[in-house]
């Protein structure tokens, strides 16, 4: 007999009480689950629709049964190399996302540290002003920003993305400030006595302990820039365009002059894949970050 079995036999017999679930509670839970599932379906349905339609015959459009037979998996190969170099525009997207995201996250983290820890006259006023910028609608700044970029001679270049990156993000600054404000001040004191100035304290003590908010920041900002459309479509020439813009406009049949919708959808799904993967990889850190930064309502 196994040890486990001996153990079970040795336990004095006690009637196990089965937890009774009340009908009212059961009904509430059923309604709740139904609501959640319906809500999830709203978000999943377009992706499923896109996926099934990406498997139709290249010139078919979106008509026919929901699940196409046969499935044209070749559309994905066509999307990758049929009309333009998918990898070239994918690389463009990577570059634009990188130069707009990585500096922004680092700058925002440092600014968040400064707002949380550095004593300066007017610090709180500046912080409120900075937060106030997040309330300015995009439609107001859009045209002036275009004008500025053109007049600075940055039209048709990637410079604006780098500048936006270096400038940081008001929301991320807020996020990091909230996170760093919860650090024990004694850590700063210990670092100061160990010989660190602010920069070294930030780089050696604060930043290595910021995995959660860093993940949140990279995912939030990164996915934003990954799918960014308007600035790219407006400011960049075709050779520098990111994939998002190219996929939306590039799958036209050269002879029939029609949009190849299945190829477009296949390209769009391929384009989305890296962002989904990034989310899956960073999911654990992301959840922790959302909890530690108090982002959760």
């Amino acid at each position, binding site marked *: 007999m196994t040890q486990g079995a001996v153990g079970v036999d040795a336990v004095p017999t006690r009637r196990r009480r089965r937890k009774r679930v009340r009908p009212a509670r059961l009904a509430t839970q059923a309604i709740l689950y139904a609501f959640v599932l319906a809500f999830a379906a709203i978000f999943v349905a377009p992706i499923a629709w896109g996926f099934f339609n990406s498997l139709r015959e290249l010139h078919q459009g979106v008509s026919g049964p929901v699940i196409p037979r046969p499935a044209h998996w070749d559309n994905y190969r066509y999307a990758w190399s049929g009309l333009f170099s998918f990898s070239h525009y994918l690389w463009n997207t990577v570059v634009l996302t990188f130069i707009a995201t990585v500096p922004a996250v680092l700058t925002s983290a440092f600014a968040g540290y400064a707002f949380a820890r550095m004593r300066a006259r007017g610090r709180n006023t500046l912080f409120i002003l900075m937060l106030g910028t997040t309330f300015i609608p995009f439609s107001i700044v859009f045209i002036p920003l275009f004008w500025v970029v053109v007049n600075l001679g940055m039209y048709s270049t990637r410079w604006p993305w780098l500048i936006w990156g270096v400038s940081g993000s008001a929301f991320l600054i807020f996020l990091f400030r909230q996170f760093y404000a919860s650090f*024990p001040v*004694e*850590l700063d*004191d*210990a*670092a*100061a*006595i*160990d*010989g*660190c100035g602010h920069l*070294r304290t930030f780089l*050696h*003590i604060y930043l*290595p*302990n910021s995995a959660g908010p860093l993940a949140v920041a990279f995912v939030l900002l990164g996915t934003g820039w990954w799918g960014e459309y308007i600035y790219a479509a407006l400011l960049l020439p075709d050779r520098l365009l990111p994939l998002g813009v190219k996929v939306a406009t590039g799958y036209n049949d050269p002879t029939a002059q029609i949009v190849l919708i299945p190829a477009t959808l296949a390209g769009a799904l391929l384009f989305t894949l890296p962002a989904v993967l990034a989310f899956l990889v960073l999911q654990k850190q992301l959840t922790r970050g959302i909890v530690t930064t108090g982002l959760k309502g």
Partner: protein
Amino acid sequence: MAGIELQTVAKTFPNGVRAVDGVELTIEDGEFMVLVGPSGCGKTTLLRCIAGLEEVTDGAILIGDRDVTDVNPKDRDIAMVFQNYALYPHMTVRRNIAFGLKVRGTPRAEIAARIAEAARLLGLEELMDRRPLALSGGQRQRVAMGRAIARRPRVYLMDEPLSNLDAKLRVRVRADLARLHAQLGVTTVYVTHDQVEAMTLGQRAAVMNEGKIQQVDTPQSLYWSPVNLFVAAFIGSPSMNLVEAHIADGCLRFAGFSLPLAELGPDGAKLPPKVILGIRPEHFSEVEAGQSPAWSIEGEVTVEENLGAEVLVFFPINAAPVETDEIVSIRAGEEEEALLAQEARALFTARLPSGTRQLLGTKIRLAVDPERCHFFAPVTRESLLTRTAADEPIPALA
């Protein structure tokens, strides 16, 4: 190593709070000095001023012969141990100890040697590759000490380093700290609100209240010869019994008791008509049948706490409790912990040898040794009679 000199050091915060108010203090080279006082008395702020973590508003701080008033913390050649240890959470014990040395550009071989030395001294060898989260409170405390020791500074500053440990561990670490200081001989400034730590660790202790040093002396002197009401009430546990008394017809009168002043000898004549009388709980003794001491009081025991070798008895007397600012300030920290509201009558405490007799609910008569009574001026709160330190140990602080 180096001594520390504080010259009229003051610190006023931007909100107007004057946390440290003209502190003058000389700490000898190699001395273990304790800054003790109730919460909010300014002891931690003073320590942070010495560390350079707070800028002083006025005065000067000298470490050795060097004026460090405007010197950065890293250049003061000090090491600090914090209440919550302040270990870097992402670093192993080894890296925590090495960090300060690395930042200062200490050669690698030297860092390794110092880490090994600190680890050996504090028994950290087994823990070197662990992170703080995987350590117990006591182990974290040792790592924090290790970090300070490895730096080989001229001065150690410790901010309530034992307060996060449980009571049993605290006693052990307290003894270890005393041993460590004896071994290293480095000047140490130790902040605590716990008078047991102050009395057991400090070669001298500075009792602080409202940003000012009330008395700097050896633990024995603080206990036997407090210079004022605050020190008298703060040092000793249970606290000194205090009551307002007046002098009439050659007797000291309070709560219906009348104690002949002649027992005080020539000192009796020095007392003004009104005084605050202070009697430590351990300076009562039970009056046996047939005895008739000149100074005695009586009361009904309302609470009895048997501590094994001794018993604490609490009995109210017919007088109002002394409610000076000092007492209020001392009690402020304890108030939140108190279960019952303050009584209208003063509650006296006596520490008696444990006997077989149950005292609760009974009337007891207690003799008072006039030589061990303290007298304070009601207005200035200064001690009116000089008491010399008795050549006997201070009773265990409960």
